[in-house]
């Protein structure tokens, strides 16, 4: 074990990097299926709720090069037990705008797209119901939230404590519908060989997709193989099966050839999920010294008519600050919208915007530094589960960040610093994300020549897993990087859950470490500590959560400090610099981890300033359904980013003391920007995104 810990922590350059920069790493569309590829294009409903009254594919079917047009009248019947948006073409009913109502298969993409326009469809439809409000009479409490969280939590007498608090904040914040929009559009290429299906697919975990294909086509697991070694971003939208995988497999089976279905960017706004909009009322009560006596966080959000997706928006409020009286609630409205899904840090991302904005408002009421306010409310134990922290270094992140950023001596007053036309302000917010571990299996093969093959159905959606898992494996086996060949992204490999919930490294990395321990034990017990010439194969893994998960509260923490400049004449917002400091356990790869942190933070800046999917209340669709209308941060929107992390040793979370880092960066980021915006302008924008029109709206209101 002399080389133990040699590689974990090192900033190894991405092993998939040289192929990716040249563009030769094959993403789903780019795989070679071994035969010519036909193309799928789809007809989508133009109404939100109703029924197809007429569907005539004859003109499309007659076009040269069209191989098939599938409709509810002729599509193969699918098996049962599928998520509600997956039974494609199984009924004439329409549940959301953009639902697939016909599928064209053609020799070329040009012909397929042209044929879509030749399919005639008419509907009998009701008007769309797509507008969320906190006053809707049909709001309801779901049984549970996503990831198994309780819908509500109530401790103590919140209303009584608020009524008697020396200082209170009562504010309502909103976040809009957002779309994940990875730059690689969802793509599925399907090939049948008899009753065996191979799919090259863009997803966050092949095993997840296999489950639904098995159910849809009534197959055995060993009849389906999903291959996804390279994935062009995901951010949650590629975690679960969507209609594209079902359509590709169905079309390929009908025409008896390999087909590919690559969504258009526009289709990414209806077929692969979105983040629910939220309306969040936060009430804080504090004593005159700034110690919180009550926290109330009430969330209203939407789900679709055909599925229940209950985002866990107020859950960070259950862990972040101490207060004796506390309440969090979640209420849903079922609307005529496509099914929502997870998007980077579902729950924490919108929830932390509200909570951390409210904390800033409270600091202003108290005349207290917002860093100090947070430090004063640091809980010694998990305030709702009443458990000790496995490790918690939020205060150290705040203090270190303040020092790196140059926070000391900051003027508390808003709207008083200017550089010509530019109003200047600074803001802070905390970040947090839970640490979990999931079941994962691994197979390690030692070859007689000293090389090792490590197999696990993990997934690299840009996270750096290809590299970081190789580092973990090399250290655990006590060999160099070059001696390890990692295989991930293929359902034929041992089981692993998908890349989601920041559980990739904590689960797959732990599975590799434990399996490597078994390897070394077997070598010691049976082979005198030496790899035998004929090699060995060892299977192992982790069963699920850490055995300490019910006794310790496990979370990563961080703090963001940002400077913004706001043009006093146009309301334009610039972000020249920011510092983020994290305490997230063992950092496996210093280079790729930094990219995870700064990428997450930058997506939070994008959320703060740009992102909003606008639903048309009359026509029911997302008006701005492309990248010209749905703005995400560009290069010029992001300034100098200082990313730093603290040493943190956590013996409880998993074998290497790792905490997931893919999502914490986005949490709190939008609040830090909004707080800096208030400090610059004196204007509190509580409805994201902070676009220039809101500058003038708030100026007028003020």
């Amino acid at each position, binding site marked *: 074990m002399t080389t133990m810990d040699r590689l974990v922590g090192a900033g190894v*350059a*991405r092993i*998939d*990097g*040289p192929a*990716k*920069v*040249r*563009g*030769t*790493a*094959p*993403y789903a*569309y*780019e795989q*070679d299926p071994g035969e010519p*590829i036909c*193309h799928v294009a789809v007809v989508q409903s133009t109404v939100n709720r109703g029924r197809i009254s007429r569907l005539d594919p004859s003109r499309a079917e007659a076009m040269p090069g069209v191989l098939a047009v599938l409709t509810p009248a002729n599509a193969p019947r699918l098996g049962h037990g599928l998520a509600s948006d997956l039974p494609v073409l199984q009924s004439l009913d329409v549940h959301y705008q953009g639902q697939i109502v016909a599928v064209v298969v053609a020799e*070329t*993409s*040009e*012909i397929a797209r*042209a044929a879509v326009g030749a399919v005639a469809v008419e509907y009998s439809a009701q008007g769309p119901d797509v507008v969320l409000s906190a006053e809707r009479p049909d709001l309801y409490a779901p049984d549970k939230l996503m990831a198994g969280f309780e819908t509500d939590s109530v401790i103590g007498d919140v209303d009584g404590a608020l009524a008697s608090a020396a200082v209170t904040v009562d504010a309502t914040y909103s976040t809009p519908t957002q779309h994940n*929009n*990875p*730059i*690689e*559009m969802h793509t599925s290429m399907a090939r049948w060989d008899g009753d065996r299906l191979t799919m090259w697919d863009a997803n966050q975990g092949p095993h997840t997709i296999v489950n639904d294909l098995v159910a849809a086509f009534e197959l055995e697991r060993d009849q389906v193989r999903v291959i996804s070694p*390279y994935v*062009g*971003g*995901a951010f949650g939208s590629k975690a679960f099966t969507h209609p594209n995988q079902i359509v590709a497999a169905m079309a390929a089976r009908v025409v008896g050839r390999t087909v590919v279905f*690559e969504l258009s*960017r526009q289709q990414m706004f209806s077929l692969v999920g979105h983040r629910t909009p939220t309306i969040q009322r936060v009430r804080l009560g504090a004593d005159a010294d700034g110690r919180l006596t009550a926290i109330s966080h009430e969330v209203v959000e939407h789900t679709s008519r055909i599925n229940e997706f209950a985002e866990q928006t107020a859950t960070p409020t259950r862990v972040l600050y101490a207060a004796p009286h506390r309440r969090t609630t979640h209420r849903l409205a079922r609307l005529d919208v496509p099914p929502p899904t997870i998007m980077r840090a579902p729950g924490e991302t919108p929830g932390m915007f509200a909570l951390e904005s409210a904390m800033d408002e409270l600091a202003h009421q108290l005349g207290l530094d917002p860093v100090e306010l947070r430090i004063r409310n640091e809980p010694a134990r998990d305030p709702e589960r009443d458990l000790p922290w496995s490790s918690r270094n939020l205060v150290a992140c705040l203090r270190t960040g303040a020092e790196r950023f140059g926070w000391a001596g900051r003027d508390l007053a808003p709207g008083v610093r200017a550089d010509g036309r530019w109003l200047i302000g600074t803001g802070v917010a905390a970040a947090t994300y839970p640490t979990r571990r999931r079941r994962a299996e691994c197979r390690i093969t030692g070859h007689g020549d000293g090389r090792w093959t490590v197999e696990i159905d993990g997934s690299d*959606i*840009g*996270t*750096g897993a290809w590299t970081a898992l190789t580092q973990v494996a090399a250290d655990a086996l006590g060999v160099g990087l070059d001696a390890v060949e990692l295989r991930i992204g293929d359902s034929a490999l041992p089981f692993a859950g998908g890349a989601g919930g920041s559980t990739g490294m904590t689960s797959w990395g732990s599975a590799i470490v434990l399996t490597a321990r078994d390897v070394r034990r077997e070598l010691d017990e049976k082979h005198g500590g030496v790899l035998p010439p004929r090699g060995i194969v060892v299977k192992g893994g982790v069963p699920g959560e850490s055995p300490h998960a019910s006794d310790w509260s496990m979370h990563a923490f961080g703090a963001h400090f940002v400077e913004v400049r706001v043009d006093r004449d146009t309301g334009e917002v610039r972000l020249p610099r920011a510092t983020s400091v994290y305490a997230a356990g063992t950092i496996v790869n210093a*280079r*790729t981890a*930094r*990219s*995870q942190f*700064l*990428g997450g933070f*930058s*997506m939070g800046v*994008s959320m703060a300033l740009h992102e909003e999917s606008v639903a048309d209340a009359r026509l029911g669709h997302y008006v701005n359904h*492309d*990248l*010209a209308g749905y703005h*995400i*941060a*560009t*290069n*010029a*929107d*992001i300034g*100098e*980013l200082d990313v730093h992390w603290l040493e943190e040793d956590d013996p409880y979370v998993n074998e290497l003391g790792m905490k997931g880092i893919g999502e914490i960066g986005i949490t709190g980021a939008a609040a830090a920007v909004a707080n800096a915006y208030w400090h610059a302008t004196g204007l509190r924008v509580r409805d994201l995104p902070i676009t220039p029109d809101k500058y003038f709206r708030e100026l007028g209101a003020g």
Partner: protein
Amino acid sequence: MDTEITLRVDGAAHPLTVDTRTTLLDALRERLRNTSPKKGCDHGQCGACTVLLDGRRVNSCLVLAVTVDDADVTTSDGLAAGGEPHALHRAFVEHDAFQCGYCTPGQICSAAGVLAEARAGWPSGVTDPGEDGGDLTDDEIRERMSGNLCRCAAYANIVPAVAEVAAAEGVRR
């Protein structure tokens, strides 16, 4: 309607029959199976399909293949002359200027275009009036690279990667 053209891609000539509706991007990806340029929107909004057309950067999804008969097309893969990585390839790997890698070949072609534009002294939207555009400051790089979206948001690493090559090429003072 089909038309016969010759596409010269990364130094090799490819006689090809294309539908007149076929974009340069689809001709590369679907006909030639050259998948170095990526499709991210098909509408000129994301920049993932950026290639160099006779040395200038273009969104290949906005170019019809029939209009580039006999033009020189260079993809990021083609920038690796003789299989040797381009300086931009090395810099992007070194600075971890990408995560998922899907927008990256377009980013690199775009950066190659930026370097050429700076060598020619072309100004950008943030160049001071009267100054030439031959000095790729961080702000110049941010501005000129903003036609290439990166959803992983590796922007803060793309800037130093391009800056390093710009300095080596004498277009960053």
